[in-house]
């Protein structure tokens, strides 16, 4: 599904934010991505989503390169940033309609999915209100719904659980499971290591732009906790 080959990116031409990253994410994977602040998590997620350019290597989604066929790749993915900054002048439903228009989601399909997820995340009553009147959590939910209404094959999420209430967090995890059952893949960054342990079948740890561990979560953890492993990796210079 997602193949990252020797991907490198530097913002200043000196220090590499991502350094020869290699990753392979398959359909059905819920892939956790952990690392300290400034390790390169957001840079990698943004590069996969085609938001920023990268210097070396390539990224393929379903065999298509984000460098040469960005529109085809973007049609298959959904990206959710760490901060839900969306068009505040639009109402919730106008924003969702806009995203559905971009992905050419049919009227019936968008109605079905918007209603399903709006009810699930309990924001159906505020869809006609301007987004500027929403709380942080409500904005997070509207961004989540916008990512789900075109049924992406690959979902990229940067700290998706920040700002969500416990019920919404639980529901989001259920949505992840439902999506991967249908053949999609999820790749998300988080600082909540317990979520990775319980939810992800695979995990990657990034340190100073390099992937220092990745693979099946149970193999990486072995008989330790992910927190211990993370701390050990952090200590190593």
């Amino acid at each position, binding site marked *: 599904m997602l193949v990252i080959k020797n991907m490198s990116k530097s913002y200043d031409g000196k220090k590499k934010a991502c350094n020869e990253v290699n990753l392979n994410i398959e359909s059905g994977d819920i892939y956790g991505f952990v690392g300290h602040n400034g390790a390169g998590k957001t840079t990698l997620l943004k590069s996969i989503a085609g938001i920023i*350019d990268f210097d070396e290597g390539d990224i393929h989604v379903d065999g298509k390169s984000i460098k040469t066929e960005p529109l085809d790749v973007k049609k298959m993915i959904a990206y959710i940033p760490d901060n839900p900054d969306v068009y505040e002048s639009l109402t919730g439903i106008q924003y969702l309609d806009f995203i559905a*228009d971009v992905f050419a989601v049919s009227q019936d399909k968008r*109605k079905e999915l918007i209603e399903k997820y709006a009810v699930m995340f309990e924001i159906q009553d505020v869809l006609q209100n301007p987004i500027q009147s929403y709380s942080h959590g409500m904005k997070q939910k509207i961004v989540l719904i916008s990512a789900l209404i075109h049924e992406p094959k690959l979902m990229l999420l940067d700290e998706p659980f920040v700002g969500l209430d416990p019920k919404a967090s639980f529901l989001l995890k259920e949505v992840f499971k439902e999506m991967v059952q249908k053949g999609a893949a999820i790749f998300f960054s988080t600082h909540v290591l317990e979520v990775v342990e319980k939810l992800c079948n695979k995990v990657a740890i990034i340190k100073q732009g390099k992937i220092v561990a990745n693979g099946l979560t149970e193999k990486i953890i072995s008989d330790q906790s992910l927190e211990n492993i993370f701390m050990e990796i952090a200590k190593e210079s």
Partner: protein
Amino acid sequence: MKLTGLVRLQLKNNFSFKRFFGFDFKKNKAKTILMVLAILYALVALLGTFGYMFFDLGKILSEMNQVHLLLNFAAIYGLGFTMFTVLLRTSGYLFYYKDYEILAPLPIHTRKLFISKLIVLLIMIYFVNFLITLPMMFSYFYWNGFNILGFVFYLVGIILLPLVPFMFVSMMSLGISLLTSKMRYAKIINMILMIGLLVGFLFLSFSMNSTTVNPLTGQIDLFSNITKYYLPFKWFNQAVDELSFLNLSYLLGSHIVLFLVYVFFVEKLAAFTNKRGIRTQLKYKQKTLKYQEKPVVLSLVEKEFKKFFSSTLYALNSGIGMVLLVIMSVASLFFKADIEGILSQQIGMNVDAEMMILIIFGFTIGMTYTPAISLSLEGKQLWVLKSLPIKPSTVMLSKIIFNLLLIVPIAYISLIMIGISLSINLISILIILLLILVFAILVSCMDAVINLYLPKFDYNNETEVIKQSAAAFLGIFGTFALLITLGFLYYFLSDYVSLEINMLIMTLVSGILCVPFVWIIKEKSEKIFLNF
């Protein structure tokens, strides 16, 4: 923390060169050189044009022995700018400032915070007021004779005079914010209020106008009347013109006392309003949800419309050209004789009436510069467009279409009204319609390219993009450069071809000038987008 440190920090945060230009000087030398050249050109063009007009006015007034009236112009232009700035910005600067949550928990006295905000706002007003009144000041001291004491009195006056309107309008601005905060269409109501004020001012100015070549002479009567009834202007005028210490002390005493009282009371009010916040829970009608499928471009254009009408600042600044055009065209039906009088004098100077109309339309089109700022206004939301499967060129196209939708219908209706009012022949009207369309496309494409190369996504307040960004500046003055280019073309060809052919050539040249901009948007925007 000392007050000076606080002020310095806020000035840096609001007005640093990096914030203005959106890039680092040291890292972008070529861009810096281009920007410096553009700014020099703009300053020379602006100060040159207004400088000439006020110099000419000074000459007329000198012949009438009324040069002191130029001081009224300086005072009232300063007042006008102060009032509009305060009306638009005080709410966000003093009563509901965005960094309140950062500053409030710090061990800084609320009075110190308030005074620092006040100083920053005043510095901005003084800086722009000084630039605006520079041509008037120069003309006054040229025709009246320069003396140091008069100049010092003038500077003191220019510092003091904005204070009373500042106090009055800031309270009005707070009142409007409080009154409209519970209204669903608060932004539109604000917009109508602002436009009403502007139209009122223009109407007063126009209705007292006696037909002359220099449009500024029409404001003499109005400004003389205002000065008669508003004492501080009278004190200022007499202090500078007659070097009267007594009038200067009236001005100093009254303004300083009033301002100290204002600071004492309003500081507490500002602390209260910032604590309370403006956010009020509005009740929205719950209707049945409607789902509508639309083409992407239409969806993007619709988004642009929503953004435009949701921001008073955006709509007022980049839409004022079209509002003025409507007012002028409606006025042309009622003040036909006056306009014909002005035009006949210009025609007497070998300028065709059609050209005068085209210059007016050109300026108003230039003032509708949404493509020069709308990409920047995506700000923190840019990730949405970048992550979606939309070509960057399509995004830019939607911004151009939106600008054309703002310009073309209004320009066409206005032209037809002016055409009927001034009995312009049908062929000329048809050619002007075509020229306006092509020129609007040219300006919109040029503005879009400017914003592609000079974006400013990192801002605290939309004002930084709409009024203070390099792209906005270049967008407006770039149009003036295009107008000058077409003006030269008209001037050199007018001896050889008829006016109609001349206008068709201008249309063709405008069309040709579009080509490089369209090419950049089509071929380069994808790469540029990735670097944002």
